């Protein structure tokens, strides 16, 4: 049972600050994902929580107790490493029992604990094997088993599925999630794969350049991205962005995008002529004939069928546009089509701050 709190956390390597005053509370039993591009500080953050990296400033506390200066071995936190970090000279049984042995747990208790976890992970028949004799998926399970058998306060996962093939990744994804639900252990999961983050997490933390861009439930991030970074980071293909202007000359404020005028609920602070970014997800776009009223003219540059869907890449003026269609209209590269969307599906951002309006 563990609540983890990060308070004004800072981390510098020499003069370079990589984490800039980060606040986050992770609730008991929660599965939280840290997601962001390479170098955003997500792995550093995980290593800080593990105690493998010192912090420069701020506080990190577990159940209200500050653990800034507690050694990793005394934090009661287990970690699953990206490359598993199994001890090559020990069998699966000894790998899983390593931490218990170090804690002087009596032998009579270690064996049943290992057996129980091995049964949970389907490793009963592999206990006497060495890591090198196992497949990637099995090694992954042993790494998890080594973490689970300790019954730690917190699980940390550092991109644990990135070395597995696509099919196994999907399978392990749901296995890890259901295991975590059953055990109820607070878990922090680092990934760069947004599908993993979306499907597994209770909440997602989007990191960018050592700062939190947004924290929220997966669908909240998708439905209401707080800023342009999250808007383009979550969702694949990425959200389309159009530069538009606010027009207050009429009776109600309108958004002007080429020939298009959209009624908007702009805050009073935004002046006439303010730059607005209009975001629309590819899957919320419909196509119609070129020149249809209210449609944006788009020249088709490429068409990619993925089976279930059709991806259409084109340009509105100079702005690249992606549309995901579930039907199969007769289109050819070079055609000009009309592009429409429901006004409710549009996301509006203040161009100067990047924030959602």
């Amino acid at each position, binding site marked *: 049972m563990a609540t983890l709190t990060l308070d004004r956390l800072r981390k510098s390597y020499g003069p370079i600050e990589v984490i800039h005053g980060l606040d986050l509370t992770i609730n008991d039993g929660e599965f939280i994902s840290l997601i962001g591009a390479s170098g955003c500080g997500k792995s550093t953050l995980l290593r800080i929580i*593990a*105690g*493998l990296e010192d912090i420069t400033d701020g506080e990190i506390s577990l159940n209200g107790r500050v653990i800034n200066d507690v*050694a*990793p*071995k*005394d*934090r009661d*936190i*287990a*970690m699953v*490493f990206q*490359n598993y*970090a*199994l*001890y*090559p*000279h020990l069998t699966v049984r000894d790998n899983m029992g*390593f*931490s218990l042995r*170090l*804690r002087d747990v009596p032998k009579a208790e270690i064996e049943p604990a290992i057996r129980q976890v091995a049964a949970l992970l389907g490793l009963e028949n592999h206990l006497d094997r*060495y890591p*090198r004799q196992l497949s990637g998926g099995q090694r992954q399970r042993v790494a998890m088993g*080594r973490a689970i058998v*300790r019954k730690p306060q917190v699980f940390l996962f550092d991109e644990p599925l990135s070395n597995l093939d696509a099919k196994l990744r999907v399978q392990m994804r749901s296995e890890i999630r259901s295991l975590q639900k059953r055990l109820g252990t607070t878990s922090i999961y680092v990934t760069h794969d947004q599908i993993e983050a979306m499907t597994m997490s209770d909440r997602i933390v989007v990191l960018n350049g050592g700062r939190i861009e947004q924290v929220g439930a997966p669908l909240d991030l998708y439905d209401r991205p707080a800023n342009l970074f999250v808007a383009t980071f979550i969702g694949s293909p990425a959200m389309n962005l159009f530069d538009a202007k606010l027009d207050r000359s009429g009776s109600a404020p309108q958004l002007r995008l080429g020939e298009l005028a959209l009624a908007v609920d702009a805050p009073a602070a935004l002046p006439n002529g303010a730059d607005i970014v209009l975001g629309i997800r590819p899957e919320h776009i419909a196509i119609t004939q070129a020149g249809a009223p209210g449609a944006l003219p788009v020249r088709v540059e490429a068409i990619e069928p993925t089976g279930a869907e059709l991806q259409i890449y084109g340009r509105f003026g100079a702005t690249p546009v992606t549309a995901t269609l579930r039907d199969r209209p007769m289109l050819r590269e070079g055609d000009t089509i009309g592009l429409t969307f429901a006004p409710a599906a549009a996301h509006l951002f203040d161009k100067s701050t990047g924030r959602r309006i």
Partner: protein
Amino acid sequence: MAQTRSVVRPAFIRGEALLGLAFVLPIVVIMGSLVFLPLVTTVLDSFYRIDPMRAGQPFIGVKNYVDLAGDQNVRISWGNTLAYVVMAVVLETLGGLGAALLLNKVQRGRQWLLAAMVVPWCLPPVVNAIVWLWIYNPSYGLLNNVLMSLGLLDAPKVWFNDRGTGLFLITLVHVWRMMPLTGIILLAALQSVPRELYEAAKLDGAGSVKAFRLVTLPLISGGLAIAMSQSTVFAFNLFDEAWIMGGSSLDSRSIIVQVYLSAFQNLRFSYGMALSLLAMLASLIVSMIYVLRVYRETRMD
């Protein structure tokens, strides 16, 4: 199709095999003529009496070996060599491991430290021994001077007057020269241990001592076996240091010095050959013990 292939392939294999033979030929010739042939003739000659001062080279069977077993000087030399080997292997392994662990921690300038550490190993053994002979010199040597200026010694000491001290000091010179090699072998082994394993051990609850014993040591045992084998072989073959510092003195005479004395001072060639074979066998057997032991314990990738 199948037929043409069955015709073509043996020719192709024969060509490839010939090429392979051509590649291994130089090393076969060199090893054969410089190592195996002399070894075989040495073994054969050790059953004859080969002595330039006496006429004829009669077959004498194992007489050389029987004489060796009863030779008091040989027995003392074996004792000295045993002392050299035990002290040298222990000191080189502990010292080399310590140096490797320290170097492994150093982030910046490691290559310079490594280069500095290697210097004694690059020195010709005779030069090394002469330098140390000066250090040990009773009248003007550095060791006496330092100890006396520190107040640890009242009067200059003649170090080689005591057999135990002499053996130890000679071993020290040999260790000084050979430890860098052990250090480099172990450093390479340490660097092959992935950092994540230490991090995993930390999170599993291991302090630095336990992490070393349970993770580092088993994972560098291959390197440790290589390092200890070479230490053993070189200590068994210790000659330069003992000869320069102790000459023919029985107190510090190593088995190889004894071989030299028997063969080239007393001119009992085949007697010396028999002894050199025994020395080779002894170092082979001892280093086999480490290698086999480690091989059995570390069957991993």
